[in-house]
């Protein structure tokens, strides 16, 4: 039992998620219907996939704002290029664009040393431009039935996209826990100079993480296009990146870097998802939902600060 309490006090986002789910059930018992719970998971799978990418960057001590418009650009490419080069080609091109954005972000932040906020903000604005120019400000329908079928199809109670998310989580966990790159990410995020001293190529690590985030963000756009059957220029605007970052941070990963894991991002995204879901079920005004999300974030961050202060005080005693 003690072990469980210790576990929960370190991984505070779990009791928070459970608490929110309890509140949700109290507000409307239909929340607990299995169909609804799977629904919540399915609805947030794409955000979750993007949160995986963002986690890598945040663990490294940075964050990526360009996600929000990159989404829209890759969605448009994935749809618009289908008639010309087929589904596979279109998706590949879209992912390459994500890769490219990640590379640019990575180069500028890791090797040139520009502040990540500025770099990714610039990329965000750039992508926004292309996201409107390429499709002529129109939304584009996906012509491939296979594409749409993938986006909306289900295997059991979970959508294909949800399964993709689960696979993504497992791969990310392996990388973060069992590969040099993963451990280097933690080291570089925790104390970059100590990591350098230990011989870790911090710049390369940062670069790779931005590339990962770029590719996964691009993938997010493609999946949204598959799910909606179309791309819209305003997809993701104005705050998708904030929501993804919020999901990562809410789960317990520190923005300062070096602390957290991929399962935290799952929990964080689900917390946001549950809040949204309960807003729908109770027919609440949209602003109530965002207000609640903000309030929860504050509560979580404050709780986390108190807990880590307590831990630090306990640790210093000797």
């Amino acid at each position, binding site marked *: 039992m003690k072990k469980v309490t210790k576990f929960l006090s370190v991984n505070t986002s779990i009791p928070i998620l459970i608490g929110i789910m309890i509140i949700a059930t109290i507000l409307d018992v239909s929340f607990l219907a299995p169909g609804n719970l799977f629904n919540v998971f399915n609805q947030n799978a794409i955000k979750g996939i993007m949160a995986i990418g963002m986690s890598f960057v945040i663990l490294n001590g940075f964050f990526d704002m360009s996600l929000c418009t990159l989404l829209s650009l890759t969605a448009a490419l994935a749809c618009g290029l289908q008639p010309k080069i087929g589904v596979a080609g279109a998706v590949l091109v879209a992912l390459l664009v994500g890769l490219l954005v990640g590379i640019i972000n990575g180069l500028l932040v890791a090797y040139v040393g520009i502040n990540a906020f500025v770099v990714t903000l610039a990329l965000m604005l750039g992508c926004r431009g292309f996201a409107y120019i390429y499709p002529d400000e129109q939304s584009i329908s996906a012509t491939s039935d296979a594409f749409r079928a993938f986006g909306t199809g289900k295997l059991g109670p979970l959508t294909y996209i949800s399964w993709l998310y689960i696979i993504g989580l497992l791969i990310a966990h*392996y990388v973060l826990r069992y590969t040099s790159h993963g451990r280097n990410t933690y080291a570089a995020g925790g104390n970059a100079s100590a990591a350098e001293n230990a011989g870790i190529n911090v710049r390369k690590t940062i670069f790779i993480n931005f590339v990962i985030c770029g590719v996964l963000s691009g993938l997010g756009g493609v999946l949204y296009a598959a799910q909606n059957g179309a791309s819209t220029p305003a997809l993701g605007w104005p705050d998708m990146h904030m929501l993804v970052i919020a999901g990562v941070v809410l789960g317990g990963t520190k923005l300062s870097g070096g602390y957290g894991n991929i399962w935290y991002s799952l929990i964080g995204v689900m917390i946001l998802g549950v809040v949204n879901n309960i807003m729908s079920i109770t027919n609440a005004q949209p602003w109530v939902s965002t207000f609640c999300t903000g309030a929860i974030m504050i509560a979580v961050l404050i709780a986390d600060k108190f807990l880590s202060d307590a*831990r630090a005080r306990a640790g210093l005693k000797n």
Partner: protein
Amino acid sequence: MADEYLLEMKDIVKTFPGVKALDGAGIRVRAGEVVALCGENGAGKSTLMKCLYGSYHADSGEIYYQGKKVSFRNPDEAKAAGVILIFQELSLITDLTVAENMFLGSQPKKGKTIDWKKMNADADRVLQDLNSTVKSTDYVRDLPISQQQMVEIARGIALGAKILILDEPTSSLTEREKNALFDIIRKLKKEGVGIIYISHKMDEIFEICDEAVVLRDGKLTGQFRISDIVLDDLIQAMIGRHMDNYFTKCTAKPGKEVLRAEGLTAHGYFRDISFHVNAKEVVGFYGLVGAGRSEIMEAIFGVRHLDAGKIFIDGKEVKISGSVEAVKHGIGFVTENRKEQGLLLPKSCRENIALAKLPQIKKGLFVDDSQTKQIYDKYHDAMQISSPSPEQPVVYLSGGNQQKVVIGKWLAMDPKILILDEPTRGIDIGAKSEIHNMIAHLAEQGLAVIVISSEMPEIMGVSNRIYTMAQGRITGELGEAEISEENLMRNIVITDSKQKV
């Protein structure tokens, strides 16, 4: 080439622009022996080590390692060869486990996958060898500083160190931990590891080291077998300088008591501190870094909490709860790091000098710029601040002039008591003496001046009286006649180490 030595550095010369840091310095270490590297601050100890370690490249001289001539191009090469430096500032990653820190960058793997089991087991083995209670799965952030230092050393050993350089390793260890460290050192000696032990603590040097190498002004002034010498020999080799008379001392007769402290205590920093300062007097505070001197002055200035003790100004007890109050009582504080705490770097000289007086020189809602200019002119002349114009942003000034601006700022406040913490750190010789002159001058004009310094010549040159400190306690008060290098050296360590704060 001496085969008997695991490491030998000979005739190392290293020059930086304007300064010859090393002038024929060297060191030699036999396998299985501990060599102390001694010298004052600035004698060249860390420069010599950096030349060994590959961070710097010597201009001339030779380094022999394992019988071969070497020149490490960078720290990675040195590390790979088994020359490992344990930094004074810990370089651990606190959110990772002990095992991970020990094997950072070189984790054991099965193919591409990290083998956690093996890593933890290997780490535990090393830790057990060191008789440490730390476990490989502990998180570094949960360990106290002393155990973190242990992990650093364990890391060096895990990396296969043949030469281990320990830089002030016991600075944050308790007596018990120090003993444990020394046990480890003895164990390492048996295994043939050569250790360079950099420390100011004479007692430790005599306890654990086999040889001692002394540097002074970048030169090698002594190489001894510990068994052959006594403490005085070491001190003599360290400080045999001729004192340049570029210090000016305040020659006025001390006036009335201006500041008195009784029994000041701040848990963890200093204990039972009592001293007094008179007008027209310069009182020095000397000790090693970490002795608690700056902290005491911070408490006097109201920016650090006092757990016990009383402060008297002009004979009346005062309670100072913040810097604003301190300033009202006439206390000025020139801090250690002028760049972070003393100046607004992008702002002009004029604005910086007028900074402390700002609340008083308003015209309506705005700052009266003409008054700030007046203040600037007054101090610019008085202190000979060399700056092209009052509008020059201070960030472009030399260190010496920056310091003058900071001092000018405080003088503009008409203080009674002026505290200067390491006032000439990072300043060239010429400006140094100007500032020393200024200090003497200010005292002669009636100020009570406190100077904190870690540089012995400086503290001896400017102070009328010196309080020595070690580990948060005052270890002695030296009057004019008693000021000498020997007395100072003796008092900066507490030989009876039970007296920790």
